[in-house]
């Protein structure tokens, strides 16, 4: 039973069998089936065009799969690692070679002029002399760590060092002129 709806958009079911093509229909169907000359002429070009596009897309796909930035990141990592190795090797301390780190700072060296005899420093007087020497070394302008015009607080500290510590139990006298600058 054929059901034909007037509404072209609604899906309908044609349950009968299709009638065979009449003469007129055969003519236009045969025209549909004809392969025109243009299609025949550029058949090889068409195949080559498809394969060419396939090759280009394959190349792009491979690049997309591995990622453009991944090779860049790998190259950057390798470059950084290589730079690090080069830097370490360049600054590697050879036996007997003195580096900046191993050099003794002149300002940390005690004044060699008053050569203190090595020995027992348990004597408070000796301790005071050592401290005094250290303070003199610290106050030398050429090797001084402190600025040329020491602040009042620093002066106070220096005085503490220079004060004869005969009896450590003695309290230090208070200064009247505290110039805190």
């Amino acid at each position, binding site marked *: 039973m054929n059901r*034909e709806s007037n509404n*072209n958009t609604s*899906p*309908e*079911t*044609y*349950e*009968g069998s*299709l009638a065979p*093509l009449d003469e*007129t*229909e055969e*003519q*236009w*169907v045969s*025209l*549909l*089936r*004809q*392969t025109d000359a243009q*299609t025949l002429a550029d*058949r090889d070009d*068409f*195949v080559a*065009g*498809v*394969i060419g*596009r*396939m090759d280009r*897309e394959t190349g792009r796909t491979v690049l997309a799969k591995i990622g453009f930035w991944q090779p860049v990141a790998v190259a950057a990592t390798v470059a950084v690692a290589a730079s690090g190795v080069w830097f370490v090797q360049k600054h590697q301390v050879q036996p007997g070679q003195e580096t900046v780190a191993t050099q003794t700072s002149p300002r940390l060296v005690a004044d060699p002029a008053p050569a203190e005899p090595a020995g027992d420093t348990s004597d408070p007087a000796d301790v005071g002399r050592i401290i005094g020497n250290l303070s003199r070394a610290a106050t030398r302008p050429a090797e001084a760590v402190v600025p040329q015009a020491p602040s009042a607080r620093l002066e106070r500290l220096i005085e503490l060092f220079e004060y004869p510590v005969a009896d450590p139990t003695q309290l230090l006298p208070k200064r009247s002129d505290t110039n805190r600058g």
Partner: protein
Amino acid sequence: MQPDPDKPVVPDVTAIQISQLALDHCDEATLASRVASGDRQAAEELVRRHQSAVRGFLRVVCYDRSATDDLAQETFLRAIRYAGRYDPKYSMRGWLLTIARRLSINHGQKQKRRRPQPGVELQRLESNQPRPEANLDAEEQQRITKQKVTLAMSRLTEPQRVSISMHYQQGLALEEIAECLGMPVGTVKSHLHRGRKRMKELLEPKNGEV
């Protein structure tokens, strides 16, 4: 065993020729699996076998005639890319035409705003038609008739146009067309029936023209 010097030496068939012979006769499932594995020759064979069908189908179905070759290329590229998904239960041609149809629909949707009104295009085509009483040779008459058929097909609905092309132009069975279009067989028959009826109305001579 020593070769006989009196016998002529027959050159062996080259490996390429053997490969091509194998491709020429291999079934569609084997061809698809070779394409999926990256066989370039197999991909070329796939295009060579079906390019006429796909291009002919798109010329009938696609509204934008100038885009048919691009769409046909895109159809094969997709088929090559997804060759692993081909189901041997269906014909390769039906599978390709399904891809082509979807691409044609997508293309039509994109071109919708720029597409000229059907009436305008028909008028342009019809204005190029010579008057019926002109003295024309057989080749010219056939060209005109073909143009009329193209015009008439463009006035069908998309399902009618696709069904007629797949069944009468490409020779696909109704069941296969139903699978490709995702509709019942009865609906495919209905589209064919209504499409043929409409074509008859459009191609019938009017006002005494031959």
